[in-house]
């Protein structure tokens, strides 16, 4: 499947969900910080020489207790107008808004009670 938008690597383990934008692994990042208005969602932003790149593109997302915070995060994201689109190849998601990405992951990991996964195979295919 061809990726549309930014490609996300997914890691999920018993509540901890982390998404990494894989398109530019060399980029620097800020520390994780809360995304304003969305409790439970932390993000890192792209930097170069310590300065924010492209007005602070998000390059990583972290939720420590996705099974509890997921519905609220999805609802909050659906009300915002993030312009970016994302693909998650291993989940069959392409060109989706961030709330759709989170909804797909919530349905799969939390509602579907799937086994925890971090997908090292994806790293190989992205290399």
């Amino acid at each position, binding site marked *: 499947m061809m990726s549309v938008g930014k490609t996300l*690597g997914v*890691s999920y*383990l*018993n*509540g*901890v969900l*982390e998404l*990494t934008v*894989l398109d530019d*692994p*060399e*980029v*620097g*990042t*800020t*520390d*994780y*910080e*809360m995304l*304003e208005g969305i*409790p*439970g969602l*932390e993000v890192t932003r792209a930097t170069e020489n310590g300065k924010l790149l492209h007005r602070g593109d998000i*390059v*990583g997302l*972290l939720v*420590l*207790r996705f*099974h509890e*915070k997921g519905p609220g995060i999805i609802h909050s994201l659906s009300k915002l107008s993030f312009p970016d689109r994302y693909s998650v190849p291993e989940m069959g998601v392409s060109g989706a808004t961030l709330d759709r990405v989170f909804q797909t992951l919530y349905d799969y990991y939390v509602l579907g009670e799937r*086994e*925890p996964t*971090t997908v*090292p195979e994806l*790293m190989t295919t992205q290399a």
Partner: protein
Amino acid sequence: MHSTAELIVDYSENGKGIVLEEGYHPETIHYSVRSEFDGKVYMTYERERNIAIKRRRRKSEEYVSVHLDKVPLVLADPDKVIVDPDYPDSTHIYYRMFELESGERIGLAVPVFTKATRYVYTVHSWKGERVKGEARGLTITWLKR
């Protein structure tokens, strides 16, 4: 010769299965460390593997995967500890900077679940400046600063 980190680690439950919270899939204990703030804190093999894979995805965070052996020191002797503003009833975040033999300084941030069985959620990079919530201007609840 044991390093300081090894001396503060309890491996007596190494290899045992553990369900960290009700409804979670079982994980396997690697070690526990006694924290001044939270008592016995577990690290599992599954979490370490997961963290190592995640952090290798980005060059600026790759050092975390190389220095996971320092997590016991972060828990036992942190520079800073705060109550996580997203989870004030259940999560503390431990921070510590290390100076490597090369002179390079690296920082680790370790969120810990603090209700019932205490355990390390994950480990991520830290630049040694602000803690979570400071950039948003929140009032931080410090356990150590």
